[in-house]
């Protein structure tokens, strides 16, 4: 009689352990590329770029965002790796990273040849000497990359290129056309404490969202003198945090999982809030009556860069990969799969949806001039100020916990 419950309780313990493991093991979809600007004010270690291209080494090890290196295992139709492998003889080994921090840590191991770094990771990798300058003369497709993406603060230092641009996108304002009128053209609709949409507003669940509040303050409170939403001193930071604490009262829920946002908009639980273009497309495909806009204040966004490790064991294959991923066809495929603007101008003719480049504003520099690419805040103010200390990302994270309460 006694042994049965005993065994049962032991089984239960095992089941509980399994449940815990399952709970802890699940991950949410990558919080997309984080990215970024910033005139840095540091001198990178002197590392020589590759001078000439040799034969491939037979394989290449990549660190990438989910969806950037697809060999057909996610969807048989989504495959731009197999052809690369057969053409170049370079076997592709991919390690998918979930955050910029993870990417930086992986690159520090020295096991990888190339990385699809976002703006914050890219500067840190350059400063730490983990990545080498890239000799763009060895990458024929670089010539076709949009001029607006070349030699930018997040992929080049002092005119030296450290990588090739992968693609970019903006965080947009999405709303339900049947529940929100008039159509909003300002972030005010998600920040106004008296918003008529109280309880149905959504915001991105990450400390980086503080930058969205800063972008709004740049337009509405010019007296704060915010020049970059990622370089905030005490007063500016406090203003952004206060704005977000006020916003908390009208938030229905925060999102970081994009399927969750699609469902919330479709059901009407959420009627207005920040989003990505790809989410809007998926929601519209799901018959949800939603529209998106780039509000007049501008917005945050991302722009990613493929970089080569300073001590790459397979540099030739890495260069071949860089050239391949920005080639018109492959760049078009990855841009469509991920839902972003391609970096190669010729990709626009290669997309399955002929309107892809228009939808994602690939050629619209005016559109992207209003986009502040994500970057990780550091104590040295990214806007060039030296008389104050800016809030770093650890402090942003703590503030974010406080905002959510």
């Amino acid at each position: 009689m006694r042994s049965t419950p005993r065994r049962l309780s032991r089984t239960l313990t095992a089941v509980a352990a399994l449940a815990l493991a399952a709970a802890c093991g699940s991950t949410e979809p990558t919080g997309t590329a984080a990215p970024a600007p910033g005139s840095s004010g540091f001198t990178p270690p002197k590392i020589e770029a590759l001078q000439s291209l040799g034969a491939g080494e037979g394989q290449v090890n990549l660190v990438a965002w989910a969806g950037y290196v697809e060999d057909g295992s996610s969807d048989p139709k989504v495959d731009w790796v197999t052809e690369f492998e057969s053409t170049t003889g370079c076997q592709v080994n991919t390690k998918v990273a979930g955050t910029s921090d993870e990417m930086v840590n992986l690159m520090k191991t020295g096991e990888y040849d190339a990385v699809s770094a976002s703006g914050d990771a890219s500067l840190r990798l350059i400063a730490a000497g983990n990545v080498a300058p890239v000799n763009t003369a060895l990458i024929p497709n670089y010539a076709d990359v949009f001029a607006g993406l070349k030699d930018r603060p997040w992929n080049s230092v002092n005119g030296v290129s450290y990588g090739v641009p992968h693609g970019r996108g903006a965080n947009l304002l999405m709303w339900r056309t049947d529940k929100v009128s008039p159509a909003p053209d300002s972030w005010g609709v998600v920040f106004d404490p008296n918003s008529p949409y109280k309880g149905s507003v959504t915001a991105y669940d990450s400390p980086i969202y503080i930058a969205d509040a800063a972008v709004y303050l740049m337009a509405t409170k010019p007296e704060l003198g915010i020049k970059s939403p990622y370089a905030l001193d005490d007063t500016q930071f406090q203003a952004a945090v206060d704005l977000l604490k006020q916003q908390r009262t009208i938030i229905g829920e925060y999102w970081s999982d994009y399927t969750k946002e699609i469902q919330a908009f479709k059901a009407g639980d959420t009627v207005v809030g920040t989003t990505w273009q790809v989410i809007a497309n998926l929601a519209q495909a799901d018959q949800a009556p939603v529209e998106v806009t780039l509000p007049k204040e501008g917005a945050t966004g991302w722009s990613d860069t493929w970089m080569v490790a300073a001590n790459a064991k397979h540099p030739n294959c890495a260069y071949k990969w860089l050239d391949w991923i920005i080639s018109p066809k492959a760049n078009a495929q990855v841009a469509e799969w991920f839902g972003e603007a391609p970096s190669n101008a010729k990709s626009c003719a290669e997309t399955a949806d002929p309107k892809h480049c228009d939808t994602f504003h690939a050629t619209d520099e005016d559109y992207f001039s209003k986009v502040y690419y994500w970057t990780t805040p550091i104590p040295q103010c990214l806007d060039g100020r030296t008389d104050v200390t800016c809030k770093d990302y650890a402090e942003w994270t703590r503030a974010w916990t406080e905002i959510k309460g």
Partner: protein
Amino acid sequence: MRRRLATFLHRHAGVRLSLLLSAPMAWLGLAYLGALAALLVTAFWSTDTFTGNLIRTFTWSNFQDLVTGEVYRTVALRSLGVAAAVTLIDLVVAFPMAFAMAKLASPRTQRWLVIAVLTPLWASYLVKAYAWRVLLSSEGILGWGYGLGATILTLSYLWLPYMILPIYAGLERLPNSLLDAAGDLGARPWRTFRTVVWPLTFPAVVAGSIFTFSLSLGDYITVKIVGGSSQLIGNVVYDNIGAANNLPFAAAVATVPVLIMLVYLSAVRRTGALENL
């Protein structure tokens, strides 16, 4: 040779025992207590904000932030409240169900009921949480919306089997003759429950409550899916690792649920329930 070894082991009970126990003890010591120790040590370090490297020098600053930050107290108390509410709801739902299973159903039905209770455990945690998200959505069947209430409801559903099964096991151990005796001596159902059933199944209830309480205390996914804009301790830990790469502070925050569980377990121990499990 083998026989000599067998004889040796037969004569030296201590050696026999230590050989038997060395593997599980190594597991417990290294994998379990070792991880806890690593957690505690990490909590006293800090990180370089630019390179993200660990700085391995002793500092109290993480705990200072934790104690002085009002938000962490609020979040800890909220998590405690959620865990207590889930445990209570599960107890109220599980006890009658376990009683029916153990005392009223035929042995054949009993087996089927146990399977029925276990079946939800075969489905993925995420699927079940998202199913509740759909149910609670304003266009869903329930349509109650998201928030802390939704979180408690979903967690209660998720952990219910962990409460039913220990209580069922406890009730099965309770001889029917005791219930009959109580009835023969004139006790009404409520009195029988209070003086016979409850005291004898209390250890089982405690076992179940340890499951539901600790599982709820550490959860951070359900609250992300149906919690609206609220957050629990788990989310604070997760945000500090996933977003900020601040492992030391995350470790410091993670000591809070460990402390709460230690207090809970020592309180349980004082009731004597653990000896009767």
